[in-house]
């Protein structure tokens, strides 16, 4: 009887994924990647067995219990073994999670970073080119979480002899190749962190409190005399169930208590138009603001940005006559070419972790800007 029961259970377990797969499809895990597609049957693929490996990838990706089993395994790894279930996420102290790529290269031999020096040189040249075109360039550098909160990182294996962050390295390089309007966010954030938590524990980004600091710092640099007029009134509340991008990368539902924007009131009427979707799911907004009085707003502006600016954007969007917020680092993106030509201010925000990936074709940008004059 026991044998029959065990065998029955075994057979049910073996057959259920196929049987279930006929009825429903596997629920997604939210990995931000395309799952393997059904491979095409070709003679070459059969001969060199590449079809079979492709089919196996497809089968694995669409396995009906994949989400359930992955979450269960991750739960055990995280809660029982205290191990990060995703190699891209580092589990720090006191529930703080970090994106691995936000740490400096553990194998870095020294603080001499040719890539960062090259980038600083390009930024310096870009600043000159934009300035020569009659526009003003602002460089905004978003510090990664470990740069502001190194104390929660915990033990991290490294053999690097350089203790400096990429942020510090770029700041040092920019001393040699200066950019006139460099919006340093590390200093105000480091200063403010004693009073309030500025990053989410389970997310890579600033929380609303950190975003407010960022917005104020940016507006201060954009308009040193009138910046306070542009700061909106923001009402914050607290939610006990925030779960950030890093938590999602672990396929776990780790909750934290975090502030959220309950209400936001601008000095001007704000209109947002979603222009189009760039690079898959990255939004591209055009924001126009109309002030109730004759109070001047900041001129037409283009903002090249990444995910870090999502929340600060909410806080600065009532400050510009027109603001085109484009989620890209490519200043030559043809879709945004007209916006660049018609902007007076050029804001470029980039996250610290992407510094090694960013580069500019300065002569091409110069040529693009030469074609028109700013409004």
């Amino acid at each position, binding site marked *: 009887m026991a044998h029959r029961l065990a065998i029955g259970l075994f057979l049910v377990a073996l057959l259920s*994924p196929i049987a279930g797969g006929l009825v429903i499809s596997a629920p997604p*895990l939210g990995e931000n990647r395309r799952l393997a597609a059904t491979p095409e049957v070709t003679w070459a693929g059969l001969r060199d067995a590449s079809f079979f490996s492709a089919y196996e990838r497809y089968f694995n990706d669409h396995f009906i219990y994949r989400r359930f089993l*992955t979450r269960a395994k991750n739960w055990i790894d995280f809660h029982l073994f205290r191990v990060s279930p995703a190699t891209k996420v580092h589990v720090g102290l006191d529930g703080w999670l970090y994106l691995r790529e936000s740490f400096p290269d553990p194998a870095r031999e020294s603080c001499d970073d040719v890539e960062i020096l090259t980038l600083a040189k390009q930024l310096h040249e870009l600043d000159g080119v934009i300035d020569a075109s009659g526009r003003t360039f602002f460089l905004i550098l978003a510090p990664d979480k470990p740069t502001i909160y190194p104390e929660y990182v915990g033990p991290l294996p490294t053999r690097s002899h350089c203790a400096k962050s990429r942020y510090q390295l770029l700041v040092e390089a920019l001393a040699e190749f200066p950019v006139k309007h460099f919006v340093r966010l590390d200093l105000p954030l480091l200063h403010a962190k004693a009073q309030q938590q500025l990053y989410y524990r389970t997310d890579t980004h600033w929380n609303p409190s950190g975003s407010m600091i960022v917005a104020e710092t940016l507006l201060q640099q954009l308009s040193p005399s009138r910046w306070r007029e542009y700061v909106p009134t923001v009402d914050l509340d607290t939610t006990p169930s925030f779960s950030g991008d890093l938590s999602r990368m672990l396929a776990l539902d780790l909750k934290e208590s975090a502030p959220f924007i309950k209400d936001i009131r601008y000095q001007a009427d704000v209109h947002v138009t979603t222009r189009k979707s760039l690079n898959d799911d990255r939004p591209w907004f055009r924001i126009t603001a109309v002030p109730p009085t004759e109070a001047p707003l900041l001129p037409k502006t283009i903002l090249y940005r990444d995910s870090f600016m999502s929340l600060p954007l909410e806080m600065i969007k009532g400050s510009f006559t027109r603001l085109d917020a484009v989620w890209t*680092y490519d200043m030559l993106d043809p879709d945004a070419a007209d916006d660049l030509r018609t902007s007076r201010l050029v804001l470029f925000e980039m996250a610290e972790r*992407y510094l090694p990936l960013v580069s500019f074709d300065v002569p091409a940008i110069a040529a693009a800007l030469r074609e028109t004059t700013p409004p």
Partner: protein
Amino acid sequence: MVFSSLLFLFLFLPAVLAGYYLAPPRHRNAVLLCFSYLFYLWGAGAFLFLLMLSTLVNYALGLLIDRRSGPDARRPNAHRWLAAALLFNLSILATFKYANFLIGEINKGLAVLDLPPLFWAGVALPLGISFFTFHQISYVVDVYRGRRPACARVVDFALYVAMFPQLVAGPIIQFHEISEQLKQRLETLQGFHQGLLRFCWGLIKKILLADSCAKIADAVFAQTGPLGTGAAWLGVFAYTLQIYFDFSAYSDMAIGLGLLFGFTFPENFHRPYSALSITDFWRRWHMTLTRFFRDYLYIPLGGNRRGPLRTYANLITVFLLCGMWHGANWTFLIWGGYHGALLILERITGMNRTEASGLPLLRRALTLLLVAVGWVFFRAHDLGQAADLLGAMFRPAAVPTAPEIMETLNNRNLFFLALSGLVFLLPREFSGAKLLLTPRPLASAMVQAGVLLAVTAYGIALLASEAFNPFIYFRF
């Protein structure tokens, strides 16, 4: 396709079980053969044709040998057909497994002499070639020796060669051990149940124990820079555990799968790390390979019947070939020679005798140490890496542990490494698989089944999450 994959567990296995048990008994071998060929095609692609061709040739040669080797026959040409069969099988092995290495080494020599290299386009290594060739050698020799008649049905013989549970990694089943089962066997519920438990046991060993140890061992063996003494020993012991749990797990799964289809395969491992000597180790490690070399090479060479010097020569020959069988590289040759030399040393000193041995714990520890040192050659990419690693093990140096190694030393890997390490300490006759199959009261059996189910589910969860690869955002 490997046994520890979702595709095998949830697509191939249900399909083959359904196909097999729905087929009439007389067609079951044919069904199993078709699925075995599909299994091979999945991993080896067009090499399936090589497997089929070599099967047909050996089948034909077997018939030719058998016609002349009956007890009453004079068999004037049997030895010639046998020689042809051996030549054919060894040529296939030499071409596909050793030619790249051999011609590469010859070309190195020619380069030193400033002579042009030999032209050789290079060949890919067909999956499981060492195993299916040995099976076919076992067949023709057993038929020649008259231990068993040749297979009358080509399907039976092809199944013996290609049966998917043992096709790519053994155990090496000698023809006379299974020939009757190929003709007639009884599939029972009890056998199926035992096969099920054995398969799960192997799956757990592979996914939880072997793969956790592999992460540490791989990180150590991948180091190109200097290595500290502690890290070197850690890597070698992690590999010592990995190779045992990986290989014995595969054997467990193969034996379990065999039982699901009514076959009883020979055991392949018997607590090798509890061996009291290297001689004892080889009675417990990859037992089917040891038996193959003993029956088809060592004994025909004269074994230990022709005096000590000839015995030593036979031992070293067998172990050099055993090393080469594992792979075409100097590291395997050295590994084989190392074990052969240790066996000779044990014979000279009398340490090969385990019956009346004193200090068993010390002997176990020493044997383990010697075996672990041998694994350095087995695992190293080349002799240079083996020398570096042995240098790091025996020349104390305070080198900081590389971050790549530190990354692998997380709680999970360390827990399973420690759990695996129990194999060094458990009694010599202990067997996890036997413990699992021991009949027990219902309540106890239910608890055991529950634990086995939960651990297997965790193992399958590890498999399912292997492809889990989250990105913070779609890349720029």
